[in-house]
């Protein structure tokens, strides 16, 4: 990894240690961030391959390339890998670790060794999940939600997979504890709460969700294991248990977890848009506040995943109503981004294109979420491909594209080399096109009634499924081009020095790539994060 780096002293080489062990046992937040980046992106690629296989299977009715049991296992593993091993740790673990301490003017996070432990727990959990696929009764086939009663009865290796997710949960908690403490305690002089960059603000809100919601996932997974191993019967109706209670517990975590995935993505976009518009962000305080509001409101709405599960009608109405509240802070963000663009001096470079497509794709995903959040319309589209399209718009079109934006925006800073602009834009155009062909078609299919997680379907859904599958290939082509261009650039591209984007947050004031110590001496902050008046591009 390290031998191709520029020779100027930086965190790549300035401690004199460049071997593998100096990385996997490093407590430097930048190195841990890169470890997280490479591991999460690897699991992303695994998930992408599984997703492409699923799309090929669904290209035509009936069996195409795999059997029904394989299909069940593949969509389960696709979900588990993408959610627990990619999106949740993706931004906080990778870019949060790399950028946040520098953004607040700190030398490192509050607990560097816990930070390393967090990455190791992530790796251990991931290995356990991988082992579960090839041992015992084979890969879990329950869907990533592990719903009882099926998950407590299926012969596949659910117990081990659940245990792996349990371990990954601890890694997420440690990141959350670390970030809240760091943001409270290690801000540089002059880094007041109203000067904290919005990316860091979003990580702060995210960290609270990680702290308060993840333990509920932990206990839920313990209960599933107990159900399978000890026969506790807490969710077994024949023994007085209630399967719907499992869904409550699961979504008490997993709905807020959606905000662990999307909030930091919003933070990335909030940091990129003003830089490429050469204008201070519009409504800084409202964007910061809306991150906290989304985190808070997002913890009240888990019941909207259960409208058709046999929950009481009162609860359906209450949760449906509360769901609409989340739309308010989300819309505040979207309108503020748009207002930032207004009369800005916009340059459409790769990070900006990804950030702008985030706004569009997230809005489509968010609006289709309202259709699902309204109890009456949800009954029509529940458990159809409409839902699959919806959350891919939010998770992939939202978080995924924000991660791509962050990769183009921040990675050159940490490598001191950059990618080529033209291929990056072509890759973006391919991905954007393929993405919409794939997932918009899915939403249409769902409206027409095609159920999700079904191996086979009626012939009338055939043509649209073919279109969606072709979309997935365009998307994949764009993805390959983007990654090849990006990594070639990072290792062999043109030098990236100084502050080419003209960012005003602290990470652009330190050397490129940053030294292990980040700052020479203690930084003193004298201006806001989007005050571009003194910034030289």
């Amino acid at each position, binding site marked *: 990894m390290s031998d191709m780096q520029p020779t100027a002293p930086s965190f790549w080489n300035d401690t004199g240690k460049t071997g593998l062990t100096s990385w996997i046992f490093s407590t430097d937040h930048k190195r841990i961030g890169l470890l997280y980046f490479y591991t999460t992106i690897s699991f992303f690629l695994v998930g992408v391959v599984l997703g492409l296989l699923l799309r090929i299977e669904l290209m035509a009715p009936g069996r195409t390339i795999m059997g029904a049991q394989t299909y069940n296992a593949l969509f389960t593993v696709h979900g588990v890998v993408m959610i627990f091993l990619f999106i949740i740790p993706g931004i906080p673990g990778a870019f949060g670790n790399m950028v946040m301490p520098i953004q607040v003017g700190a030398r490192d996070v509050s607990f560097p060794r816990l930070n390393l432990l967090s990455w190791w727990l992530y790796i251990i959990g991931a290995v356990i999940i991988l082992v579960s696929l090839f041992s015992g009764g084979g890969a879990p086939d329950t869907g990533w939600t592990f719903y009882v009663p099926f998950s407590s009865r299926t012969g596949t290796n659910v117990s081990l997979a659940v245990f792996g997710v349990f371990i990954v949960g601890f890694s997420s908690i440690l990141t959350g504890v670390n970030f809240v403490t760091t943001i*409270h305690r290690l801000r540089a002089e002059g880094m007041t709460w109203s000067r904290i960059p919005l990316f860091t603000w979003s990580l702060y809100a995210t960290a*609270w969700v990680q702290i*308060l919601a993840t333990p*509920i996932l932990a206990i839920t997974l313990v209960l599933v294991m107990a159900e399978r191993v000890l026969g506790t019967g807490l969710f077994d109706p024949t023994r007085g248990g209630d399967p*719907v*209670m499992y869904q*409550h517990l699961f979504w*008490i975590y997993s709905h807020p977890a959606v905000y662990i995935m999307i909030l930091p993505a919003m933070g990335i976009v909030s940091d990129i848009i003003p830089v490429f518009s050469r204008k201070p962000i519009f409504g800084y305080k409202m964007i910061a506040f809306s991150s906290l509001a989304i985190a808070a409101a997002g*913890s*009240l709405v*888990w*019941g909207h995943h*259960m409208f058709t599960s*046999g*929950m*009481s*009608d*009162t*609860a359906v109405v*209450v*949760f449906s109503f509360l769901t609409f509240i989340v739309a308010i802070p989300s819309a505040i963000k979207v309108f503020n981004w748009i207002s930032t663009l207004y009369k800005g001096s916009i340059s459409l470079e790769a990070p900006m294109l990804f950030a702008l497509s985030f706004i569009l794709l997230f809005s489509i995903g968010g609006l289709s979420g309202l259709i699902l959040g309204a109890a009456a319309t949800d009954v029509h589209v529940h458990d159809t491909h409409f839902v699959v399209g919806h959350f891919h718009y939010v998770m992939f079109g939202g978080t995924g594209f924000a991660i791509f934006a962050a990769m183009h925006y921040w990675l050159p800073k940490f490598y001191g080399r950059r990618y080529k602009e033209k291929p990056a834009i072509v890759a973006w155009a391919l991905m954007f096109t393929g993405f919409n062909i794939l997932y918009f078609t899915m939403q249409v299919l769902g409206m027409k009634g095609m159920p999700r997680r079904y191996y086979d379907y009626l012939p009338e859904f055939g043509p649209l499924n073919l279109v969606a599958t072709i979309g997935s290939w365009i998307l994949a082509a764009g993805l390959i081009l983007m990654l090849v261009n990006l990594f070639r650039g990072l290792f062999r591209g043109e030098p990236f020095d100084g502050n080419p984007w003209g960012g005003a947050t602290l990470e652009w004031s330190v050397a490129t790539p940053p030294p292990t110590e980040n700052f020479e001496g203690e930084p003193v902050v004298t201006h806001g994060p989007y005050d571009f008046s003194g910034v030289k591009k």
Partner: protein
Amino acid sequence: MDQHQPHIVSNTKLIGIWLALLVLTALTVAITRVELGGYKVVGALTVACAKAGLVIAVFMHMKYEGVLLRWLLFLTLVTLAIFIGFTFFDVLYR
């Protein structure tokens, strides 16, 4: 908040709190041995909350910490209350 002065709690005070906790334990056992119906639950939980309050305030030094930790603890307890309370929108009206 930045100046963290360690506050030394005297042994006398700690032992006093311990005695109070023992008295409350005896009280909670006593009231639940009497037939009070549903008030048993309320009574026992009230005593438990009082005991928890003493442990948090004195044994865990919360009384001597800055306002930040208190707010964060409050936030956590509110979150837990919401998780349990909102589930009852389903359980009570099923």
